[in-house]
């Protein structure tokens, strides 16, 4: 976020209450639930709506090819196409706790687990073209599926950690995610209309990036925007935030590959 944005933010901070409890008092009423798509300009919506013009499909196509290729190991498709490990809709239930390790994994993490455990291949680097492609492809199989994650049992502590981060005031601007995405959605922040901050479009294409990226890349931008230190790609905290966001967005359709400003 550049200077004008910084000034607008400074006002937002100054106008907010200093009280730390402030951030926690907000929430999102279920009947107000709206996709980020609804806050886009018509031209950007049109780009997402057209499966050819949507540049995200370049990554879906790449992932499709990788999914069906066997690079010295059985292909993903050999286990997942037309078997009881069918992946249609799977993405709408991520992040999820991996039974074997008891750890929370998002779709990227789950794909890397398959590479290590079932293909004997090294895990792919976060935000690499290959991992973005595979994630985009698997996510696209769940397009339109309502978001629905399990936050009970082992997942509960991750959900709580994600929620805590969402309400934590941080960075030079001392802002919490909630202060923008719960308290000020629908209002303008420089060139943007603040949405409710759902992750359902990701991995997705951002015009600002001129590129395709993961939800963690989007979260890093929000943290950088309030001048907080962005967390590393694939960090446990961001994955926990991803779970919190998924629960918060429950029922919204999966849009990946979404297009955003």
């Amino acid at each position, binding site marked *: 976020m550049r200077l004008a944005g910084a000034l607008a933010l400074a006002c937002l901070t100054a106008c907010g209450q200093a009280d730390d409890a402030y951030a926690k008092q907000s929430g999102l009423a279920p009947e107000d639930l709206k996709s980020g798509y609804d806050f886009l300009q018509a031209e950007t919506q049109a780009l997402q709506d057209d499966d*050819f*013009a949507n*540049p995200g*499909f*370049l*990554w879906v*196509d*790449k992932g499709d090819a990788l999914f069906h290729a066997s690079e010295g190991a059985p292909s993903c498709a050999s286990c997942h196409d037309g078997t009881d490990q069918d992946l249609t809709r799977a993405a709408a239930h991520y992040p999820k706790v991996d039974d074997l390790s008891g750890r929370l994994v998002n779709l990227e993490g789950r794909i890397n687990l398959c590479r290590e455990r079932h293909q004997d291949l090294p895990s792919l680097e976060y935000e690499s073209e290959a991992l973005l492609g595979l994630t985009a492809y698997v996510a696209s199989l769940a397009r339109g599926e309502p978001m629905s994650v399990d936050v009970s049992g082992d997942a509960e502590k991750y959900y709580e950690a994600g929620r805590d981060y969402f309400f934590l005031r941080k960075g030079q601007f001392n802002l919490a995610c909630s202060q923008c995405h719960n308290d000020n959605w629908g209002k303008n922040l420089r060139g943007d209309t603040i949405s409710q901050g759902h992750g359902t479009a990701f991995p997705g294409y951002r*015009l600002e990036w*001129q*590129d395709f990226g993961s939800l963690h890349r989007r979260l890093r931008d929000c943290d950088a925007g309030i001048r907080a230190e962005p967390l590393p790609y694939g960090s446990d905290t961001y994955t926990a935030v991803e779970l919190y966001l998924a629960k918060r967005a429950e029922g919204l359709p999966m849009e990946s590959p979404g297009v955003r400003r």
Partner: protein
Amino acid sequence: MIRISIPDTAKAGEILDIKAMIQHPMETGYRRNGKGQVIPRDIITSFECTYGGVIVFKAGFQPGIAANPFLSFCLRAAQSGPIEFKWTDQRGETWSETRELTVS
């Protein structure tokens, strides 16, 4: 990655909608990285579509063109034959893809 949208078959005289997209950063050469160094220009400079070996559409690209350029144009089906899509970058590297069109 290249994406092409074109029908496989057409009637003679029919006007076809053709779409083509290629993944490319189209780095302008005007941006700087976190250390203040100029990110070198890296752009596609031209696109050509040939139909049966004859150029039917051609475009020149400048740094102002967005990443992953998307082109959409029309073509009149005449005879069966190959349609080639070819992109060339500033260093002369090329990427191409060919589709066969059957005209009845």
